């Protein structure tokens, strides 16, 4: 019994000591700033989380104050709720998650104000102009899926991995990486209407398992024995259109971005999930043209895609051994073709954005789920915007276009002098996630921007990380961001097992790329681009 009391006594004493120490530490950490000097400029912070619109469900936007000082004070407040106060000796500002979420969810539609004070070497506090951001009424989809890879372009030992990330916190979960099946490549992931339970994932495995596609439908995984390119789901979820491309990797001799991919052959096919067949409509596999980047309209009545004439002689299936002639003159139009899913019938082809008018090349079209917007990239030439610094994102109002017959478009404000692309719409059509090289050179990062009713984009912000300095030394690129409405439920083990298993669905490709003709089989697709 005595021993019991001794232990109890010791525990009580320890608790009291801990409480005293905690109180002391916490109270001494709080500093009363009774006098300060106002600095009439914005405080420098990194990442740049200023003057933007943020979703009410985003993870805390941790940042580093790029002003030299000995102590830092940050006050984050809005109209409602308790302000968040952070005292730090370190310029790294880590915002408590619970308080942050409480504050921003209470203040939808309000301003979020961040006051920053820095104590200089002279012992005086400086107060900078407050950072003012707007909290939107509409949420962003809670998850995003992206691919991480080092910025290179060689079949290699490097890890290529697809991750899903919760946007309301920093939890990143592996969807699949190439070590789960071999050291080959895994390509674009495409979800049907932001649904995490309906996904297609391209696998480029040459060593053991062969090129294939993994189809996820609810909990069921199937392997299709053909590799698909850029994919777009029909909104019904019954079919997916995809491109088959023959690509050639080239290099610029002096340009800052060294890489350039040229599409030497391309066509669009579609896979029907009900009949488990692949078809290549005549209109989308014209021998003399390059058809690529398919994107279904929200109602599924049109397929938007990019196309351009082939300007070099026919290669007869032999891979190019030199830079194709007139490659700089290849500019893609944005076209669309009507489709009747019930009769599986294709209609008239229309050119929506003509390169003759713009003198630019269109790529990566994406329609918003509400059917109002069509976003796309435009570059000075070529089909692949990620390596082209002229690539910017444009927006077209489809609804007003349908009314007036005039499909006008404008460049989004989020564009920079570096490459932007891979845009993905949120399920409520208010947010777009996209890839940009604007802040980190060759290291592509994922950014978000709010699109208002007038089609104006807010200043973009980089996907927040727990460590605000994470991107400064991260040697991986974040590409192909896809916003989804929930977590990907399948495990890497299940996906890996599916890739390793023999294909359960075998399809015949009616036309191959080498020499477009009937009755061919699936062929090796030497993709080289990875961003």
């Amino acid at each position, binding site marked *: 019994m005595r021993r019991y009391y001794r232990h109890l006594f010791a525990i009580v004493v320890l608790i009291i000591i801990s409480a005293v120490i905690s109180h002391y530490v916490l109270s001494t950490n709080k500093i009363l700033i009774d006098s300060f000097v106002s600095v009439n400029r914005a405080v420098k912070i990194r990442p740049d989380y200023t003057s933007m619109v943020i979703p009410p469900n985003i993870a805390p936007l941790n940042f580093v104050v790029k002003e030299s000082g000995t102590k830092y004070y940050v006050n984050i407040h809005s109209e409602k709720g308790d302000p968040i106060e952070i005292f730090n000796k370190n310029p790294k500002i880590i915002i408590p998650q619970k308080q942050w979420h409480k504050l921003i969810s209470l203040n939808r539609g309000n301003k979020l104000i961040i006051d920053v004070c820095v104590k200089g070497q002279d012992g005086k506090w400086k107060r900078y102009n407050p950072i003012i951001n707007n909290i939107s009424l509409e949420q962003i989809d809670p998850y995003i899926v992206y691919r991480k890879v080092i910025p290179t372009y060689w079949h290699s030992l490097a890890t290529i991995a697809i991750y899903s990330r919760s946007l309301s916190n920093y939890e990143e979960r592996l969807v699949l990486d190439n070590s789960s099946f071999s050291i080959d490549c895994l390509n674009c992931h495409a979800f049907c209407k932001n649904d995490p339970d309906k996904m297609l994932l391209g696998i480029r495995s040459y060593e053991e398992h062969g090129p294939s596609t993994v189809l996820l439908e609810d909990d069921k995984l199937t392997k299709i024995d053909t590799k698909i390119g850029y994919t777009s789901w029909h909104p019904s979820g019954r079919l997916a259109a995809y491109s088959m491309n023959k690509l050639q990797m080239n290099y*610029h001799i002096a340009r800052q971005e060294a890489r350039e991919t040229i599409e030497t052959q391309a066509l669009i096919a579609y896979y029907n999930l009900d009949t488990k067949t692949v078809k290549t409509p005549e209109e989308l596999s014209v021998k003399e043209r390059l058809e690529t980047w398919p994107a279904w309209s929200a109602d599924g009545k049109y397929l938007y895609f990019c196309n351009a004439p082939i300007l070099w002689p026919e290669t007869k299936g032999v891979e190019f051994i030199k830079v194709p002639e007139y490659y700089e003159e290849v500019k893609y139009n944005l076209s669309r073709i009507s489709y009747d899913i019930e009769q599986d019938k294709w209609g008239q082809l229309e050119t929506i954005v003509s390169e003759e008018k713009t003198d630019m090349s269109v790529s990566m079209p994406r329609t918003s789920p509400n059917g109002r917007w069509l976003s796309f990239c435009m570059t000075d030439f070529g089909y692949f915007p990620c390596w082209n610094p002229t690539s910017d994102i444009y927006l077209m109002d489809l609804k007003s276009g349908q009314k007036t017959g005039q499909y006008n478009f404008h460049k989004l404000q989020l564009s920079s002098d570096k490459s932007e692309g891979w845009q993905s719409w949120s399920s409520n059509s208010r947010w777009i996630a996209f890839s940009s090289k604007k802040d980190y050179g060759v290291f592509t990062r994922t950014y978000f921007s709010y699109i208002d009713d007038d089609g104006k984009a807010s200043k973009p912000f980089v996907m927040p990380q727990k460590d605000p300095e994470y991107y400064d030394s991260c040697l991986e690129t974040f590409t192909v961001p896809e916003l989804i409405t929930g977590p990907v439920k399948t495990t890497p083990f299940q996906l890996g097992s599916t890739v390793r298993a023999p294909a359960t669905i075998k399809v015949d490709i009616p036309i191959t790329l080498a020499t477009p003709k009937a009755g061919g089989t699936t062929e090796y697709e030497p993709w080289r681009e990875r961003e």
Partner: protein
Amino acid sequence: MQNKMQVLVNKRHGRSIRDLLFFVLFYLYFWLEVELHFMFYAAGKLFDFPVFFQGWDFFRDFLVYPGGLTEYTASFLAQLYYYSLAGAAVITLLAWLLSISTNMIIKAFNVSLLRPIRFVGPVLLLIMYSQYTSYIILTIALLLALLFLCIHIKITRKNKFVIIIVFIESAVLYYLAGGAFLLFILLCAVYETFLRNRLLHGILCVFLAIGIPYIIGVRIFNLYPKDAFSNLTIFLWKTVLFQDRAIINPSVYILYSFVPLVILLKGLWHLLRAVLPSPGFGYTKITTIMLSLKKYILWYTNAGIVKWSIDSLPLILIIAGSIYFFKNNERKAEFEIDYYVYNKMWPNVIEVTERYPDKLLAVHSSNLALFHTGRLGYDFFHFNKTHQSLGMLLLHTAPYKEMHWNKANIYLEVGPINHAYRFLAIALDHYGKLPAILERMAFIHMIKGDNNSAKVFLNSLKRTLFHKDRANHYLSLLESDPTLSTVEDIQYYRKLIMPKDRLFFYRDERIDKIMLELLENRKNRAAFEYLMSMYLLAKEPQNIVKNIYRLKDLGYDRIPRLYEEAILIYNNATKKETDLHNYRINPESLKRFKDFNNIWKRHKYDKKTAFSDLKEFADDSYLFYYLYGVPEKR
């Protein structure tokens, strides 16, 4: 005195002194002779050379798969190669731990006669490093397996809960050392079955060998099944798939197999003894022989220092033999050259090449060194004497396709910066985020004016153990002067970048075409000298003559000797006087040409008979090369 000596060299002390001496010499050998700092810089030449970054983020990534912690520890320890002194201490420590764990296992298995086997591990490490191969991750994984076995032996002697203990040990070890756990469980099975006569436990071990990797590796950590069983073992499939990463050193296989082999043999012996009814003729005969030798054995056992010396002799012989037969000085030279090139120690590069003039990569690097010391136009034929020389010059022919690191170096010097970037990116992809690659990448992006990319590489470099200062130096430069206008190196290389961009397909590029293009556009001394070297090798003196006009523009005081010789050959053949654009042929070169001709004339222009005299007279001249070519073609 005799007694004192006797005490000193009694069994235990004798062994301890031998061990101590062995490991002291082992350490000194690694520190002073192997010179591990050369291995640190050997970008892409070492399998299993891990990278290490400071910080929680880097550590966290190792927690999420079995074997990660071993890899993390090995990554950290491998960085200490940066200082030969510290690297040697790491290897010696590993060798010592291998030795004591082996010793303990041998004792436990009652094979004390085989006690010298404790030196097998260290000697194998010595062989591996003498061959300039490093398998530190595999070594640590193996060591963990052996140490766990020692722990198992110790705690299960008088413990009833062996099954639970084996299970816990297996799970923990598998998490720590991945597939290396299989070695532990195999030895455990033998120990439990044959030594402890616990057959059930032995069978359990077999089940655990399959179950633990499957449950923990495949099901929990989602490993590719092959990886779950083979990670951190010598059977890792990736090492088989990639030629440049294949484990080619048999020592690693022996290192992994010698303990289980001994134990298995012991187990089999144990089994045989149990099966055999009683000691037969063989036993009696052996016993009789032993008894007759008893007197000598007794004398030998008490022979003190003599016994100690005789016992030590085989070890000394094995070590000396290992070093003599396995020391790979040529590979060391490759590593040395990489180190000197990285640190721009050009005279050292030339000095190593003098020792290994037939080593192609040494010759390649020496060309770079000759260029930097202004000697390429003079001493090019001092080294370039094989038919591969043309390919070696710019590493553009097939046999050198894996030399991404070296290719990046040469293209950076000669000018097509995106070629350099391409090869460096491939090196990054193949060999990982090695500090030397990160630094080079940052440098290339700074030249290209892509400060944002450069900063990411530099911030990453900042997180390494020993390159923080270099990274901070460049980061502060970028902060204070974003255009880097004051950094001479950067400005120099920027001036070499082509003013007009164009696209190239790497399989279609003729290297001489690029060089001419570079020369047309820029004052590019490196491109000029390398192009001229190509013309020399191709025996095209007419092209040397055609390009002499560039000398003035490129700031040459005089015509380099080898070009003078080419001009003289050209003049002599065409009977024309070349326009030398206000340069003149050096009298020494004229005299040399005349003397060369006289020797040849003396031999009545017979190439065969004149060979030795001309070789002696001007082996390193273009005159000699032009006449005889490379040895293979003579």
